[in-house]
């Protein structure tokens, strides 16, 4: 799993059936303090996230298949949670 900020929405009409009705976003992995961490990535939304949200992304082969209840899902990464805040417990942000 990784923390990321939703930066853009990918609009597509022609797509694999597994993507029907789902929103695909460009996400920028971030550190807990919000700074960018590595290359951007593409993720399928599962929690009604929006551009600007900080989210938890993740997935493994077969996970999307189970989550969406479909037979085949060529989906690597899902947006699985919208982050409201990160509690550092008085530690310095990483």
């Amino acid at each position, binding site marked *: 799993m990784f923390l990321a900020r939703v*930066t*853009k*929405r*990918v*609009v*597509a*009409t*022609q*797509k*694999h059936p*597994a*993507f029907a009705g789902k929103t*695909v976003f*460009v996400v920028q992995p971030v550190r807990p303090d919000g700074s960018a961490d590595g*290359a*951007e990535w*593409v993720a399928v939304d599962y929690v009604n996230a929006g551009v600007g949200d900080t989210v938890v992304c993740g997935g493994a*082969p*077969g996970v999307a*298949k189970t989550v969406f209840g479909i*037979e*085949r*899902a*060529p*989906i*690597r990464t899902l947006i699985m949670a919208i982050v409201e805040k990160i509690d550092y417990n008085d530690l310095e942000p990483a």
Partner: protein
Amino acid sequence: MYLLQPVTSEGAASETPLVAADPGRIASPGDLVVYVTSTDATQAFESGFAPVNASVVELVDGIS
């Protein structure tokens, strides 16, 4: 099969090119697409299995 050049959302080349299958026949040279790799690439086929490393799954109309 297509040769894909991975790009950032701004269109700049980001990684080395790779070969990808297009099981849904949705792409043409010059198009912006979403692709998946590894096990997910095999899942893009009706059979659920194909000896490929990457598959095109979306033809991108735009990024907003």
